[in-house]
């Protein structure tokens, strides 16, 4: 199957290991992955902050860049949600775009992707993957099938971590109060790895955990699913 990767600007720029993991994972599952270099950003930051007019050309660009693909996969529930739910309100008919877990379970029809990840992991379902896209338990089903992975339930998992894009700086104190509770939940699990399907939320919770020197590492779902006994996940600096 021919698949286009929409890396998202955040992952492309700050978390390249996640995008490389998506490529490795999808190729292992028999997909032919392409990365159209014309891609940049879905326009979510602009749209959600009130700059709708600036978001429009970015949505148009997205449609243009990906129009020839039957399947676009993004390692982000938030950006996939922006494309699927918001781009149509900006006058676009976007190509079929999936969040990674959805693509694996719904399109490829797999839950056991042959991964191996010998760590204690807790999973935070990000708001947009949960409520905009409705990915439900698909990421958890994928994680449960990972060999050697010790999955521990996150208390109050569905509560927002407080990121919210520019909310994190416009209402920094409220965002921090939400973050504090999320970190308390994460730390209560005793997990060494916090997993999520969005690097934005992981950057937020991970940034807080890093500040506390909490010793919990944020790792994107793609990187866990890409990890195998032969080619295990390694922390990238």
């Amino acid at each position: 199957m021919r698949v286009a990767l929409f890396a998202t600007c955040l992952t492309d720029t700050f978390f390249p290991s996640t995008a490389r993991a998506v490529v490795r994972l999808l190729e292992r599952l028999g997909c032919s992955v392409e990365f159209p270099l014309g891609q940049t950003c879905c326009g979510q930051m602009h749209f959600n902050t009130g700059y709708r007019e600036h978001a429009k050309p970015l949505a148009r660009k997205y449609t243009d860049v990906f129009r020839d693909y039957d399947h676009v996969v993004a390692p982000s529930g938030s950006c996939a949600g922006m494309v699927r739910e918001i781009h149509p309100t900006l006058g676009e008919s976007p190509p079929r775009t999936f969040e990674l877990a959805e693509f694996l379970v719904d399109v490829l029809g797999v839950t056991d992707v042959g991964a191996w990840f010998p760590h204690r992991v807790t999973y935070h379902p990000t708001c947009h993957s949960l409520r905009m896209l409705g990915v439900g338990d698909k990421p958890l089903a994928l994680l449960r099938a990972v060999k050697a992975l010790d999955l521990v339930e996150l208390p109050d998992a569905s509560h927002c971590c407080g990121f919210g894009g520019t909310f994190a700086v416009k209402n920094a104190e409220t965002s921090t109060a939400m973050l504090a509770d999320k970190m308390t939940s994460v730390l209560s699990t005793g997990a060494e790895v916090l997993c999520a399907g969005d690097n934005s939320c992981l950057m937020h919770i991970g940034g807080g955990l890093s500040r506390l020197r909490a010793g919990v590492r944020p790792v994107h779902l793609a990187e866990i699913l890409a990890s195998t006994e032969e080619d295990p996940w390694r922390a990238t600096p």
Partner: protein
Amino acid sequence: MARNPVTWLGSPTFPQAAHKALADTQLRQNLRKATGTIRGRRAAAVGEMTDWEQLRVAGEQIKDDVLSRLDTLLVRLEESVTARGGVVHWARDAEEANRIVLGLCREENATEVVKVKSMATAEIGLNEALEAGGVHAVETDLAELIVQLGDDRPSHILVPAIHRNRSEIREIFRRRMGVEVSDEPADLAEAARVYLRQKFLTTKVAISGANFAVADTGSIVVLESEGNGRMCLTLPDTLITVMGIEKLVPTWQDLEVFLQLLPRSSTAERMNPYTSVWTGVTPGDGPQKFHLVLIDNGRTATLADSVGRQALRCIRCSACLNVCPVYERTGGQSYGSVYPGPIGAILTPQLVGDMHDPQAASLPFASSLCGACFEVCPVRIDIPSVLTHLRAEAVEAKGRTAESVAMAAAAWMFASASRYEKAQKAGSLARFLARDGRITSLPWPGSKWTSSRDVPAPPSESFRAWWRKNRG
């Protein structure tokens, strides 16, 4: 035009108000406990309904139908109420509504009136207007009474005193009622019963709001729990009901939807203890004079906004407040409005109708857009979509700012892959700010982030650089 009293004069913007509220450990504790309790109870009450989604859709559609023919339905309501012996008044704004109600109280020579909890009267600042006109309004709902006796402001749509815990309530009762009472909720409820009993039995004029009004029959519906509503709606000689023009349903049958949606969403009960329905005046039973005051106060302007008008579907259940992570931390008073929480963040600025008002314009940004509010809304108001819509209005009203310049620059950069790639390369130089793979301090506005979170150091190579090198 006079300012809309839906917001409190002199309120700071949301971030400023939140700064203070977040530091109040008692408030944080009270809110955490109360919202946690009601969230669990609501989930159980809704969970036992197998047709909840169908009810939500019906609720949404009935309200949309009402909004699409509000003019004819209002005229129909007026005819029905008048035919049954009621008098209907129309008020364009808060000032006009207050003048009408005060005039009606004076006609009855009333110096004191009893009130059933009503958001509409809170929105128009009726109590203050009556007080200025020499009429004292006694709030009879327990939480409203706590707020009134505490010289406080409401912080929740359903439970205005949610920010107070039992021992704080005891202190207020001791001080203002002059009674010794324990902090057991049952004892506090008993104290309120004793305190208000004589008022109910002797006051001649009552003022209420309305949850619903049936256009076809002219019937008005009030849902409540304590029986204070029944007291006010039954015992006085004169009843004045103040109602937003959007509170209509077309027919009696429509109530079967809302009588299922509202109690479970609001108090998380299968049904609230008391629902009263009356139609005009009934000889020998209840008040023999009935006035219905229909208020606009910003609603028709809201109606004219194709995205924002869905806020007028709201049935004031407050489920969105109870699940909102922002509300849970900041409390309702931070919103500076009688309508706090997610619904307040979209309703208040629209009722105020002026995005140049910095307080009102700050409200649509008081959300992480997590979507929990939309998920629970019984009439399916897409609050996150209205929030982003209003953010755009706020941005437009502000004109050129440092932020708008930065946003325009970012949009220009993202519009071209080559500009974007150059920016990535330049940005990756920031890794020299990092120690041990993290950046702990950035200049403003990045400092807003690094005040509580580290930033990962940018990698030496972006994904696209890697792709070009290895796959390109």
